[in-house]
């Protein structure tokens, strides 16, 4: 793909989501969790944009912000050049952007029959009539590799993987352009995961869909993604074309992620040290006390120097259409 052919479909500018919570009932001071902290990036039309990072780094929060399920603290999102505002009914953003959740259990209404769940968004958006629901749902079920026999069943009668595919079918029902997939296959078994990934690649190729694909499985990222976005502590560490990323990650944190997968071998005596050998402080990911000014990854980084604790490295071009927020990109350890 040449650079000039690419057209940006989603533009995220300085987006933040901060949560406040009480440390304990006796403590009136409130702590802030910067779940998503001042991040900026763009997603191209028809691209698979993978977001990776460890638990709690803000991936789901980002997904919820883009789909309007939670309100932002600050920043803006533009979709196809227009300010993304779900309250603006004329713009039909709800039809264009759909989400598939991480968790196939709580995302389906337990009291509704499967065919109703799947066709609900389509009915609501006047795409189909109520009487056409069973046929409509049956064809979507086929698309995601499920049998019609479950049409009149309820979510609790399905296994986790079956429910996740129902969730995907529901999201596809309104013919979206951009799908936000939050760990769509992490609850699925391997052979079905392969089917779903094949399905998603087909939809991208033939229906020109774009995805933000949230996952923590680098094997899948390597297989499916065009670009990789690495998050840590609510910040973006790196955005790189997938092929380059898997040749050589730019950010030290990316290197750690990469090493932990290659080859994925269970390290019996990990003993709660970080994968780079440093002791992990149990606790919140994100900026630790005293590191408010510096790099989010400073405390755990093997490549850090004094400046990393003082200034925050901006996300900047490091060549070859790659971006990294690190003062010392391409510093590798044990690679």
């Amino acid at each position, binding site marked *: 793909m040449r650079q000039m052919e690419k057209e940006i479909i989603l533009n995220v500018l300085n987006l933040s989501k901060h949560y406040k919570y009480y440390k304990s009932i006796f403590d009136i001071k409130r702590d802030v969790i910067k779940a998503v902290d001042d991040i900026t990036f763009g997603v191209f039309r028809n691209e698979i944009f993978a977001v990776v990072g460890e638990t*709690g780094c803000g991936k789901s929060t980002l997904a919820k912000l883009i789909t309007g399920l939670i309100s932002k603290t600050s920043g803006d999102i533009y979709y196809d050049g227009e300010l993304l505002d779900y309250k603006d009914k004329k713009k039909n953003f709800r039809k264009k952007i759909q989400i598939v959740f991480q968790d196939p259990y709580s995302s389906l209404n337990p009291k509704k029959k499967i065919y109703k769940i799947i066709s609900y968004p389509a009915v609501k958006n006047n795409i189909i009539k109520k009487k056409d629901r069973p046929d409509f749902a049956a064809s979507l079920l086929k698309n995601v590799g499920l*049998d019609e026999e479950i049409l009149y069943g309820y979510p609790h009668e399905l296994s986790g*993987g*079956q429910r996740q595919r129902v969730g995907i079918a529901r999201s596809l029902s309104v013919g979206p352009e951009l799908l936000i997939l939050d760990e769509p296959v992490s609850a699925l078994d*391997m*052979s*079905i995961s392969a089917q779903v990934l094949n399905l998603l690649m087909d939809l991208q190729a033939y229906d020109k869909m774009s995805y933000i694909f949230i996952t923590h499985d680098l094997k899948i990222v390597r297989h499916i993604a065009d670009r990789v976005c690495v998050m840590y502590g609510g910040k973006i560490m790196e955005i790189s074309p997938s092929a380059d990323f898997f040749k050589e990650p730019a950010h030290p944190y990316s290197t750690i992620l990469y090493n932990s997968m290659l080859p994925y071998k*269970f390290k019996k005596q990990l003993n709660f040290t970080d994968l780079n050998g440093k002791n992990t402080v149990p606790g919140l990911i994100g900026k630790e006390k005293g590191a408010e000014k510096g790099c989010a990854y400073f405390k755990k980084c093997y490549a850090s120097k004094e400046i990393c604790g003082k200034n925050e490295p901006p996300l900047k071009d490091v060549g070859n259409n790659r971006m990294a927020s690190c003062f010392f990109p391409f510093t590798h350890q044990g690679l």
Partner: protein
Amino acid sequence: MVYGGRTKTMNLEIKDLTVRLYPKKYAGGYINVIDSVDLYVNGGEIAAVVGESGSGKSFLGLSIMRLNPPDVSEVVSGFVKIRCPAEKEALDIIRLNPKNLPSVRGRLVSIVFQDPNTSLNPVIKIGEQITEAIFAHKKMGKPEAKEIAISYLNRMNIDGKARFNAYPHELSGGMRQRVMIAMAMVLNPCFLIADEPTTALDVTTSLQVLSLIEKIKIESNLGIIFITHDLSIAKNISDKIYVFYAGQVMESGKTGEIMDNPLHPYTVSLINSVPSLAADYMPKQKLFTIPGYLTRDDFAEGKCRFYARCFKRDENCLKNIPLNEISGGRFVRCVKWKKK
């Protein structure tokens, strides 16, 4: 932290366990959702149950604890015997008086449920949910219980002190799962059933949780039934693998033997359907898939349960296939396993 070094004989033995499921919409009909399952795990050992979504792995875990839904299912044969130093003699959970079940669950055998959202109470602080689990079995002061809860949270890489008062919705999916594991471990059980404990976790946290499970396993001589759909995790953590399909064990044996030399067509297919990070791997290609998907029909009698999706099937497979011991401790349920 004292875990009480247990050295005496400890094992969990499942023999011929068959659980019938009567789905409401099939009036009068049933399937054997668990069919003549044999499984054996010693203290200090990890047995992985690996299989397809819908194959009955969670049902197996629930049935071992007698937590299978009583309105739609019943155990029709077999036993689940637990030998634990805390008990004078082996206990058969299947034949245990229901009123004794609460004293067994959590203490002799505990479970980490697959679904953290229905098993964590959304309106109770996570710390309190853990101390509740302690109080249900042990008498101790609140501060002492709180300390234990915090230490277990810390071990799960959650800041126990800061998050003791957090509600489940304030945690990320991965954190909730780790709270669940802390809760299951807090009574120091002899056996733990872990139903997909790392599925929702990222690589680095998953490694830490696996290493924590490994560590507690060694310290308490804990026996673990590790349910997963991810062969690469099973490969790395387990001593034995039970490959599960449609309620039956298709293949079982030592982990190394199964991974190096899979014999059942299903195991072979599974190993082939995972993307790889190898340098010469071509991304964006169609992945190998097992055609079709698991359906209720696969649970029917009179044919191999994998028949509908098997690349090796022929007319010889149209009968009930027994699980054969083909060498010491290695079992395969297939009539054609020999022919490559």
